[in-house]
């Protein structure tokens, strides 16, 4: 597994939390249906978090727990506040009310760097790629592997290109030119680059905001497999999606937001696919739709 020999290259000397994962051993790879409310301490935890944008209340009183070795799905209508929620987790926004705990201690991230340093990697809905930069530079942006001593520290360019190319190939994207600027890629290709990067660097918590929205069935499959693999490797995953099928395929726990508040919060064991679909579609709507359009 080539992904493994990059640990030494991490730019920041942040705590590499590979061994010290709280509860990691207990959860590793196992299926633990309804036990997460008790058991191990959560990696991330929001208590009564709220966020206002000027006069718009995007979130209010949200409680959330993120555990190692499990996939938490966040679902909800458009504008329900999902992206806002994960931006708080990622350190991009500060909550206007409530507390944010990482490993049980309260934090106030002032930049995503700090979240990254604590092992929280995020794929944003609006991607956070730099359009004019080549794919491989985007891939390593913020965590560039370097060689040589100061002041002659230089990038390991050859390695960066090769790794980026290889990681993208693994996700089924073979770019004709790894030097092409990201702006030249199709919408889905961009998404895959962002995901591949987060997965490659994902340390303890991987946050994905609608990663499969722009993807084809094949690429979606690859992402879902990654989510599963990450979970099995002991990572915590926060997975946001509109697709209840996708959510149900990988999720261990489901949080449904509605108008900025938590409407439903249930482990997988308490929720069947149909319930989920119903919740997301606003009750009987989907049935009606299926029926109405069914031919």
């Amino acid at each position, binding site marked *: *597994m080539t*992904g*493994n020999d*990059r*640990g030494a290259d991490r730019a920041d000397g942040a705590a*590499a*939390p*590979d061994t010290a994962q709280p509860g990691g051993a207990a959860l590793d790879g196992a299926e633990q249906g309804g036990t997460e409310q008790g058991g191990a301490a959560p990696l991330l935890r929001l208590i009564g978090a709220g966020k206002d944008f000027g006069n718009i209340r995007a979130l209010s009183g949200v409680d959330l727990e993120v555990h190692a070795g499990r996939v938490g799905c966040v679902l909800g209508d458009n504008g329900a506040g999902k992206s806002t929620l994960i931006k708080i987790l*990622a350190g*991009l926004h500060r909550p206007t009310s409530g507390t944010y705990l990482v490993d049980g201690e309260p934090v106030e991230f002032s*930049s*995503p*760097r700090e979240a*990254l*340093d604590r092992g929280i990697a*995020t794929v*944003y809905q609006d991607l*956070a*790629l*730099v*359009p*004019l*930069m080549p794919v491989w*530079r985007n891939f*390593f*942006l*913020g*965590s*560039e592997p*370097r060689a040589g001593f100061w002041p002659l*520290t*230089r*990038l390991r360019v050859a390695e960066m290109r090769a790794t980026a190319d290889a990681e993208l*190939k*693994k996700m*089924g994207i*073979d770019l*004709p*030119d790894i*030097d*092409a600027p990201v*702006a030249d890629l199709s919408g889905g290709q961009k998404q895959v680059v962002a995901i591949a*990067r987060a*997965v*490659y660097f*994902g*340390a*303890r918590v991987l946050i994905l905001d609608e990663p499969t929205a722009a993807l084809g069935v*094949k690429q979606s*499959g*690859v992402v879902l*497999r*990654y989510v599963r*693999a*990450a*979970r*099995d*490797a*002991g*990572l915590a995953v926060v997975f946001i999606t509109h697709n209840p099928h996708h959510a149900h395929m990988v999720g261990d726990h489901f949080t449904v937001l509605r108008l900025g508040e938590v409407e439903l919060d249930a482990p997988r064991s308490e929720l069947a696919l149909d319930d989920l679909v119903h919740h997301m579609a606003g009750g009987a709507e989907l049935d009606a739709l299926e029926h109405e359009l069914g031919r």
Partner: protein
Amino acid sequence: MGPAPALPAPGASEKELRAGRVPPLRRLAARPELGSLLGAVVLFAVFFAAAEPFRQAGSLATVLYAASTIGIMAVGVALLMIGGEFDLSAGVAVVTASLATGMTAYQFNLNVWAAAGISLALALLIGFLNGLILVRTGLPSFLVTLSVFLMLQGLNIAVTKLVTGSVSSRSIADMDGFDSVRAVFASSVPVLGTEVRITVLWWLLFTALATWVLLRTRAGNWIYAVGGSADGARAVGVPVAKVKIGLFMTVGFFAWFSGMHLIAASGGVQQSGEGVGNELLYIMAAVVGGCLLTGGYGTVVGAAIGAFIYGMTKQGIVYAGWDNNWVMFFVGAMLLLAVVVNSWFRSRAGGRR
């Protein structure tokens, strides 16, 4: 031993055949500075044909000197522009640095090198303040640096007047260290039988160095990133504020260097009212050389070519003996020609910017 998940076997690894690897020539042609290089070559040919004195080595040396005085600053300005900002105070900051060297040396009876050190600190401070105000207030660089430009312009004159009682600094030509300062910043060295001003060599050195930084270091990666998408860069953990402040300080460094050249070349006397308008020339050099005004794209080599185009046009008109009243018109027309050729060429080459 990173905790990355075990990768599932790539399910679909069939080769995408449609688009071949990019042919090397195409790739070369897509480089930001190639269009301006073509423009430079065309201009060179024009003057070579039109002006007989232009063909001598000495003339080339003069052209290169004129280019280098713009070009050294253009290195810093191009880096800043790639990082998404620009600096209208760069022109007067050069004069500020020059004045600071002259006045501290004279007033405190310092060795000129010591004065140069103080001046460097000041120039870096100006850059730092530019950057800090920008980052803190979130104002566009046009506004911040325009304010600083106006303030520096006023300070240059007012402080000089206050300190020396006149609006130019006093001569430091006979002070300790001036000769070695002059040797470093404003001497001539023979190159292939022609006397070439030392600023030309510095210019080439700085261009090479900045190119290396841009393309082969993490700092360079970050510069492109903050210019291309500051939000994106911040989200992946690039310290955007630090990078921007650093870039403004880099411009400060080059302003100091250019200021040292000014004072060394003028025998230690600096007029306080100069420098206004030069900031546009630096930006022009960078943009002609293919840097995008909006940031995230461009090279320092391009900026050097842009500075060369400017120097060549300005002096070439003199060599060609064209009517001097028209000089501005020619400079404008050449600029337009150069950038049109540049953009035409770039669109031919298949890039889409």
